[in-house]
């Protein structure tokens, strides 16, 4: 076994670990409202979402090999890595990927510990940008696209992050208002039961779409690493085992469920009722699918959060906890630079140590940070048992007429 092969193995394991965090970070996007309204039990929701993510991952035969081209310049337009980066058995390329992935994972685990939904793709882009700046300098990063083609950090990350939550918010607000207006004379209990099926259907659509999009990114990164170190040559196909491994990683991550994030999105932002949940999920699905058609690279996390807030604005009597929303907004802004800083620091650490030892060292650092945060989370565990408990912390501002017995107190909400 050559040192390059061991480094490649570490990169592959790290990429799969990132895929896993991507899964559990994003369970909330599709399932938070269904869990909050009890349309699905927590266990049933994560199981359904995991299966649909698995199916979605296998459906995507398209090769997302050029995924890094959006923000950095380490690949040629056809997807093959730059020749100067693979000169030494792919060491330079593998180190950038390794440091970038480690930065992304670190940020994902930290935001999970804080219960904040943040975009996994932004974390990945951030980590890669940081590692690239450290390795190739500022010119290695594609900061802004040329002309009207949305590209680079500005066109693929910054602008969509500013715009997409607002669009989703408006759509969900309109939908929620209309839905409650039409069903205003119906009893609360019938409203709740009537909308459950609609909610589950739209949530399933979101999960499937997530599987096709997000698993592909990791498959692209793993295949890039394989090409860079000479273990794979095709740019139009990916190895079957890569597809299996990535699909299983994202699905098992989804099944584990990021309960902290589900709790924040389902209970922390706004009190969600079934009609509202369906309006929010439909808004998310419509915005995500339309954007993907237009080539507008948005983050599912931002859209779904925007929709949930919008559904709160649309229901009279609902209170949006803006403090919670503000914390999330801050996390979104910080995601790219923070993951970038970690990615850059990881690259420097590996570079200073040098050789295989460098790659192994940052792998160990990443594992240690993740393990510490996981251990730390044991202080206030959130699981499927308490994910739906009443929301009350310092950021809780629900001292309005709903009180703590929201289901009863909100009876007048639709009138």
């Amino acid at each position, binding site marked *: 076994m050559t040192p390059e092969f061991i480094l490649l193995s570490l990169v592959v394991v790290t990429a799969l670990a990132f895929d896993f965090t991507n899964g559990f970070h994003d369970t909330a996007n599709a399932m938070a409202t269904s869990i909050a309204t009890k349309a699905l039990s927590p266990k049933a929701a994560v199981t359904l979402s995991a299966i649909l993510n698995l199916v979605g991952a296998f459906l995507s035969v398209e090769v997302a090999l050029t995924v890094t081209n959006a923000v950095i310049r380490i690949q040629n337009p056809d997807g093959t890595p730059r020749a100067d980066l693979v000169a030494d058995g792919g060491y330079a390329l593998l180190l950038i990927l390794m440091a970038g992935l480690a930065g992304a994972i670190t940020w994902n685990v930290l935001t999970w510990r804080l219960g904040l939904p943040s975009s996994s793709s932004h974390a990945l882009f951030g980590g890669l940008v940081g590692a690239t700046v450290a390795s190739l300098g500022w010119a290695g990063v594609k900061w802004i696209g040329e002309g009207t083609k949305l590209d680079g950090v500005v066109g693929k990350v910054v602008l969509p992050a500013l715009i997409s939550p607002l669009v989703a918010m408006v759509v969900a607000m309109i939908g929620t208002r209309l839905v409650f207006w039409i069903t205003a004379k119906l009893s609360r209990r019938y409203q709740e039961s009537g909308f459950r099926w609609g909610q589950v259907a739209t949530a399933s659509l979101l999960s499937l779409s997530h599987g096709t999009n997000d698993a592909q990114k990791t498959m692209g990164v793993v295949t890039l690493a394989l090409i860079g170190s000479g273990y794979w040559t095709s740019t139009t196909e990916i190895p079957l085992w890569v597809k299996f491994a990535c699909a299983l990683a994202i699905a098992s991550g989804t099944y584990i469920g990021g309960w902290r994030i589900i709790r924040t999105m389902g209970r922390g932002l706004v009190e969600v009722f079934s009609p509202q949940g369906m309006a929010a999920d439909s808004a998310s699905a419509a*915005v995500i699918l339309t954007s993907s058609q237009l080539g507008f690279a948005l983050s599912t996390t931002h859209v779904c959060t925007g929709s949930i807030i919008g559904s709160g604005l649309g229901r009279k009597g609902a209170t949006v906890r803006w403090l919670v929303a503000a914390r999330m907004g801050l996390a979104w802004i910080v995601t790219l630079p923070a993951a970038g800083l970690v990615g850059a620091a990881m690259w420097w650490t590996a570079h200073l140590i040098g050789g295989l030892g460098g790659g192994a060292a940052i792998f160990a650092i990443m594992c240690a940070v993740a393990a510490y945060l996981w251990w730390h989370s044991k202080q206030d565990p959130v699981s499927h048992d308490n994910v739906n408990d009443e929301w009350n912390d310092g950021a809780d501002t629900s001292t309005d007429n709903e009180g703590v017995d929201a289901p009863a107190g909100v009876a007048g909400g639709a009138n």
Partner: protein
Amino acid sequence: MDQVLAALDATWRILLIGILLGAGLPTLFAVGVRALAWGGTDGAPTPGVRPPLRGRIVAYAAFGIDIIAVLLGIAYIVLHGLGINVTFNGVIPIFTPKH
């Protein structure tokens, strides 16, 4: 600046179609839910009693359109996953392989 304009150009399209589908389809669903409660008591269908025919027709039509929309959504996701681009000439979909 070109990037901002391009983003804004995409924004109004997403907003328009988003409102049409993302707000329209749940609204339709709400019409169906309400129609089933016609002739019911206390703002809900009377248990054990079939809702009046007009209520069932409206409800099933509304749910039917919603189900078709969800199936089309799934078809779209699957086609994209299989590497086929779907473009729309008016409302007629055109399928082309991606490269």
